[in-house]
């Protein structure tokens, strides 16, 4: 399974099915309401566990985590 699909599986929530239906990999996850501060904490933990990388505090910028493409690029850079 590729990185984006794993992220989608983790983030998917039935209450957000409309948002996921036409989700573009560059869409802002924040603006669509798919992530918020609470979900973000879980997402960081998921990324660290699943992809066996350490997310440094200095990397915690919206640019790194606000879209599927951005997260994939970040993971691949580690």
């Amino acid at each position, binding site marked *: 399974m590729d990185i984006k699909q794993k992220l989608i599986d983790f983030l998917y929530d039935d209450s957000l099915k409309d948002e996921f239906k036409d989700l573009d990999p560059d869409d802002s996850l924040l*603006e669509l309401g798919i992530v918020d*501060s609470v979900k973000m904490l879980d997402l960081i933990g998921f990324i660290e566990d699943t992809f066996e990388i350490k997310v440094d505090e200095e990397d915690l*910028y919206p640019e790194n985590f606000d879209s599927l493409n951005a997260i994939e690029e970040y993971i691949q850079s580690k």
Partner: protein
Amino acid sequence: MAEIKLPWGAWYGDRVRAFSIPDSWQVTQFDLLSEKRIKDSELAEKLNLLGNDLQFKKPKNIIIVVDDLTRPVLLDSLLKSMLEKIAALGYTPEKVKILIGLGSHKGLDEEALLKKLGPFAVANYLCINHDPVDTIDIDVVWGKTPIKLNRHYVEAGYKIVISGLTPHSFAGFSGGAKMLFPGLADMDTIAKTHKSVLMGFMGKLGDVEQNKFRSIIEEFVRNVGLDFFIGVVINADRSIRNIHCGDYINAHRNAAKEARDYYLTKIDEIKEPFDAVILNAYPKDSELLQAENAFIPIKSTKTNFLKEDASVAVTSACSEGMGYHGLFGPGGVLYRNPRPLRFLKGHPVTFFSQNVSEEEFYKLYSAEYHFINEEKALIQKLADKLTGNARIAVFPYASLQLTD
């Protein structure tokens, strides 16, 4: 009938509004007293520091940055004293600009400028609303975002910032470096600031020392300079309690400490949780978009002072109606369809205001919440869920009141 009395309508009359309640309710009102006020002699002494610094640096011109009407600080008398001090040193009005640090809030028209700055400043000095487009590069990159800052500010010979310190959800307290970032920044920087917060990458309410957001923006300020900061601690009635002047970090820290001590509302001695709470948004009750500040007593508490099914009522004058925020308001890039607020943990919420429509309310708040614009209906709504001797907590200045 018994009554609870709430302060009402900051900037729009500042009066007391009484709500009739059933005699059987046991009300605990957590007041903030406004007894201490800065004396004229203390103010003059502190402004002497500014005079000394100006005489030492001898700048060609001066800019004074102030906050807007969404912040409750009354600047009229402070600003007049300061401008007279500056004028006495030879800085005629054409050498001084006043810049409103708006972030992406609505610009102040003449009426609003008069409220905020007073007639002396408005009549004699050039007052400019910050425009996120009128910004220039400051050679600072935040992550991948180049930061731009207000042109008037960057080009000024001497930079003064005046701001109040009220509890703030991610900057700990408002004011200080936050007056520049996001207050005077370009739209990309403002958006990035707010996005970082929404994604949980920033600080928390009431904390300035360990606040990641504040440490980042204080570093940015180092690059552009800030000559003299005035941190204003206001009383609950909006009078000036004290000011802390000088270095933008030290003065802000000192002001934050005094503000935190003053706004801290002791609830740890409450023996039994309450059946309901009334959170009055004053003095941040000018618009619906700022009304979420009324939840500060709940957001900041370490003590569970509400029963699991307790009702939460928010009251706000919302004198300007819904208000405006370029990012979070309807049509803004960070606007999202409203959902129940997580920190309220499922408590039933009733919101009272007579200056916003039901349609406006539900653009910002979840459909699960009740909106009421009739006073009797508000009390009835609360009474429906309460038994005879219900215990009610009232925070009349909820937008300021940190709890322990």
